[in-house]
C-alpha cells in the first residue's frame, strides 16, 4: 500500500517550518512559553483553550494545527483519522510542576488544571477534541526519535483498515528545550488544502521521516 506524507511541520530552535517554508523565526532566544504563544498568535489559531494547556500540549497542538491548515479532511470519516505521537520525556515537565504543588505538606494545594496534564497522551486528546478526530491514537515513548517505530505502527493502522489518514510525529519538550515534528499521512490520491497545494508529497517511509527531521 502506497502511503504519502502530504504535509509536515517542524517546531524547534526558535523557528517553525511548514512544507519547506519558514513560517516563523525569532532571532532572540525566547523561553518556550513566549515562543509558542508567539507562534500560536501568528498562526491565527483561534482556540482560547490553548492558553490553559500544559507546555507539551501547546507544542503538539500548534505543530498539529499548522500541518492541518495545509491539508483537507473533507470526505474523510472522522472515525478513521488517527493520531500517533511520541517523545522521550513523556510529560516530565508537567509532572515536575505538579510535584511543586504537592511537595510542601504545609502548603498542599495540588492544582487540578496541572494534574490533568500529567500524562503525555493528553496532547492527542487536545488535538482530537479541536478537530473532531475519533480514530485510533497512541502516544509512544522512546529514548530518541524513532522513525522506524512510528512508520511501522502507522503503517499497521493503514494495513488493518483502522485509519484512512493519520497525524504522526514527535513532540519532545524538556525545560526550554523543545523539538516537534508532525506529518500528515494519507493514501495515494489525497489532495491538500489550497495552502498546501504547492507541496510535493513524499512517500511515507522511515527514511523520509528522518530526512524531514534533519531539515535545517
Amino acid at each position, binding site marked *: 500500500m502506497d502511503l504519502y506524507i502530504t504535509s509536515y511541520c517542524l517546531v524547534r530552535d526558535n523557528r517553525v517550518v511548514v512544507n519547506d517554508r519558514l513560517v516563523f523565526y525569532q532571532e532572540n532566544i525566547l523561553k518556550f512559553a513566549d515562543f509558542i*504563544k508567539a507562534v500560536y498568535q501568528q498562526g491565527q489559531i483561534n482556540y*482560547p483553550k490553548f*492558553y*490553559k494547556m500544559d507546555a507539551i500540549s501547546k507544542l503538539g497542538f500548534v505543530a498539529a494545527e499548522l500541518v492541518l491548515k495545509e491539508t483537507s479532511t473533507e470526505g474523510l470519516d472522522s472515525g478513521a483519522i488517527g493520531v500517533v505521537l511520541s517523545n522521550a520525556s513523556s510529560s516530565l515537565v508537567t509532572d515536575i510542576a505538579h510535584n511543586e504543588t504537592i511537595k510542601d505538606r504545609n*502548603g498542599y*494545594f*495540588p*492544582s*487540578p*488544571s496541572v494534574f*490533568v496534564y500529567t500524562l503525555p497522551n493528553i496532547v492527542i486528546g487536545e488535538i482530537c477534541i479541536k478537530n473532531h478526530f475519533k480514530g485510533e491514537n497512541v502516544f509512544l515513548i522512546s529514548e530518541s526519535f524513532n522513525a522506524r517505530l512510528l512508520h511501522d505502527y502507522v503503517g499497521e493502522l493503514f494495513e488493518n483498515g483502522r485509519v484512512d489518514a493519520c497525524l504522526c510525529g514527535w513532540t519532545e519538550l524538556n525545560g526550554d528545550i523543545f523539538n516537534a515534528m508532525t506529518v500528515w499521512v494519507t493514501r495515494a490520491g489525497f489532495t491538500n488544502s489550497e495552502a498546501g497545494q504547492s507541496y510535493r508529497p513524499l512517500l511515507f517511509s522511515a527514511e523520509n521521516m528522518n530526512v524531514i527531521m534533519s531539515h535545517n
Partner: protein
Amino acid sequence: MEELIEKLKKEVIAQLNLEEITPEDINPDASLFGEGLGLDSIDALELIVLLEKNYGIKIEDPKDGKKIFHSIRTMAEYITEHQK
C-alpha cells in the same frame, strides 16, 4: 466589597490562565460558567483551590459550589461572610 471584586477578577484570570481576558472584560454579576466566561469543570476545581489557598476558606459541601461560584460578586460575598 468593590475592592475585593477587583482583586478576585485578577486572581481568577491568573489562576485559570485566561490570557485573552482583562479584569475590565469581566462583569462581576455575569455567570462564570456557561454563557459567561465559559469556564469548565476543571476551572471549578481551580476556584475551590483558590478560595482555600488565598482566603483560607474550605467549601465543606460541594453542593454549595453552584451558588458560591455563580459570579465574581457571589464569590466576593461568600469570602466576606466566611473569612476568619
